[in-house]
């Protein structure tokens, strides 16, 4: 295997909520530009693992290296700087409903450029507005820039959320069931768009999905969580749908 830069490294990390263990001794490394699908049954701990990797919640044990920074101990400014280098797309679009689409995308730059000028598109510097418009163009919604975010369909909202996640040119993207709240056809569109964008830019992606086909189609590699441990770590090419379904027991 070619030696390449490692963007994410989990070193035997564990997470417990109070007394309840979610997973333990999970280790893996993700190379730059890799797309990894994280699969597992409901409650297996996929969302929890993603949040630990991003430093959104603390791990109970072990160490997370994200882009060369120890994410699980980073605090304050260092943590914000690290978060500004990654992007997150969740199952829910989580747009601010009463603001315009453009303002929502401009918010994606707050990590790199904090302060009042990125509170609203009207205050934003030209470079930021241009970046936001070009992100909206990439998701095909430039015409909707001034629409209020709560006047969009679910699929459009999710595309705006993707624009918000990519506007700051993140090095790593996390996606937690990005199409779970969409109908099958809108879901396909969103997945196609998302992976076209990340492949173009050479971004490292880790995404969760309950859709076995999506995992195999969009993932270069599959990680499977079951019974509180990493039960599967293999290339997508070496697996077939039946192997994955077994993981769901």
């Amino acid at each position, binding site marked *: 295997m070619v030696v390449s830069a490692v963007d994410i490294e989990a070193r035997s990390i564990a997470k417990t909520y109070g007394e309840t263990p979610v997973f333990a001794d999970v280790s893996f490394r993700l190379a730059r530009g890799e797309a990894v699908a994280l699969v597992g049954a409901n409650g297996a701990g996929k969302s929890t693992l993603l949040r630990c990797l991003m430093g*959104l919640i603390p791990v109970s044990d072990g160490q997370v290296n994200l882009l060369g920074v120890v994410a699980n101990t980073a605090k304050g400014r260092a943590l*914000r700087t690290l978060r500004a*280098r990654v992007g997150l797309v969740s199952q829910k679009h989580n747009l601010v409903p009463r603001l315009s689409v453009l303002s929502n995308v401009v918010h994606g730059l707050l990590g790199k450029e904090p302060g009042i000028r990125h509170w609203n598109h009207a205050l934003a510097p030209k470079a930021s507005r241009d970046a936001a418009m070009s992100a909206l163009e990439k998701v095909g919604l430039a015409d909707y820039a001034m629409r209020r975010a709560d006047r969009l369909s679910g699929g459009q909202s999710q595309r705006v959320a993707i624009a918000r996640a990519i506007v700051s040119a993140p090095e790593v993207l996390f996606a937690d069931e990005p199409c779970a709240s969409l109908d099958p056809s809108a879901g396909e569109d969103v997945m196609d768009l998302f992976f076209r964008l990340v492949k173009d830019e050479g971004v490292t992606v880790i995404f969760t999905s309950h859709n076995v086909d999506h995992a195999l189609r969009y993932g270069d590699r599959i990680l499977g969580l079951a019974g509180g441990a990493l039960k599967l770590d293999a290339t997508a090419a070496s697996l077939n749908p039946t192997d994955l379904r077994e993981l769901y027991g």
Partner: protein
Amino acid sequence: MADISPTRFERPTGLAFLGYASGIIIIFWCLAGAGFSVDKVLSSPPRFADFASRAFPPNLDPQVLSRLGTKMVETLQIAVAGAAIGVILSLPVALLAARGLIAGPWINHITRTALSFVRAVPDIAWALVFVVAVGLGPFAGMLAIVVDTIGFCGRFFADDMEGAEKGPAEALTATGARKIDVVVCATIPAATPAFISTSLYALEKAVRSSTILGLVGAGGIGIELKVGFDLFDYPTAMTVILMIAVVVIGIEQVSGWARTRIIGEER
């Protein structure tokens, strides 16, 4: 078939019985303290009828009406100015009072305790304090309304922000935004409908308060009520009471209309 349903009534336990009994005793003790008198209840209808017959018809003399009207406008000015300034000042206070937003638990606790104190002091007492501080007149009344509004909105704005949907705030936190940016960009927009609703309610409350601040010389129509009763000019006093009722009900209607108009059906 065996009867397995529970008995219809359960005999209270000794402790529960003691609780009921002491509750009843406390109520009787309070009635005594409040000077409750059957005699006075029985003799009051004729006296009330006497008052009513002297108060009706209300004084509708154009000159009196125009004087009262002017006072009513002043009352509304006190209420609107006081509520507006109070609502604006409540925002920063609420940011300090809201848990898990920008201030730590100690600041939350101190701010919330201070707000409880402000609410515990009645509006009329604040008016008395401000009459001493800035002299008789509507300005004292307006300051009383400002403080009263901060006590109310500071607390409820904070609750509104704590209860606002967390998703957008979390999404912005994940981009590395600072707390203050997250609050301005996600939490406050999410809480805006609740803010509007709370502010309109504060306005209704301010109008109700402002009508009686005149009793202690803090401006507004309240003074006319006092003078009317002091001079046994019951028809004029009755006019004042009716005007207050009409204005307060009117404000409630307007604010209800504004609420649905601004916030819309969804919240």
